[in-house]
């Protein structure tokens, strides 16, 4: 059996689904944040699979997709730093990381 593009896209989509279900189901804000990372990585996996699939005229993968993945990883690292700082500030103010305890804006 040879591997096709669909195998990678399926795995990437399932990883995204797991992350999405985690964001919907979990109530701990740090776990929700980890599930966001899972979703970003699922998108990265499909980008790298497309990069390897689209072999150009020079017989090499399409490196634009890999550069885009590099940018996504960079932005995700910055996002994690800022997000965790916000979580720490929130914990200091409320002593909780449980999203149901943070309902000041709830109607």
């Amino acid at each position, binding site marked *: 059996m040879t591997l096709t593009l669909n195998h*990678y896209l399926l795995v990437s989509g399932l990883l995204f689904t797991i992350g999405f279900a985690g964001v919907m*189901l979990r109530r701990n804000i*740090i776990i929700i944040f980890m599930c966001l990372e899972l979703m970003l990585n699922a998108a990265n996996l499909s980008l790298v699979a497309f990069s390897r*699939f689209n072999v150009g005229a020079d017989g*090499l993968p399409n490196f634009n997709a*890999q550069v885009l993945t590099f940018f996504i990883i960079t932005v995700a690292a910055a996002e994690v730093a800022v997000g965790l700082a916000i979580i720490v500030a929130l914990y200091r103010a409320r002593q909780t990381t449980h999203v149901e305890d943070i309902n000041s804006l709830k109607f």
Partner: protein
Amino acid sequence: MNPILFWLFSILMLGFGISVVANRNPVASALSLVVSFFCLAALYVGLDAYVLASIQVVVYAGAVMVLFLFIIMLLDLKAEVRRKFNRLAIGGGAVVAIGFAAQLLGVLGSHPRGDQPFPALKLAEGETLSDLQKVGETLFSQHTLPFQVIGVLILVATIGVIVISKRELK
């Protein structure tokens, strides 16, 4: 990539991904996420993206996850106490996730080139893929502006984190 290795690492990655969602203890979730990221790096190696695999290990499995564990231990989070389940959230989450997976299968079934195998790379005799050089060339010749914008973004994020974590917010 050898299909056996592909399935091994895919199943490990998805299994530890489920473990991230299912674990009640945040430290166990974070460690599962590390393993999941390592398996993803192995999949990158199978796709001939060696640079991205090493960046994945260094940045994600290294820096980002150390940050997560650091915050979890700093806040001293215990395992989540069992609360009353919010039926609406669980039902909604399951429905949306299953709907998304079904949609995914439908799209993959109708994707015209999806069932073709990966084309072979054309490399000279005895040559290995020098993707670090190629990614660098692409990054610095075609994507110079985004690269500089990313630099500014990281600077802004650094300053923002310092401002947010200062004790007295005026």
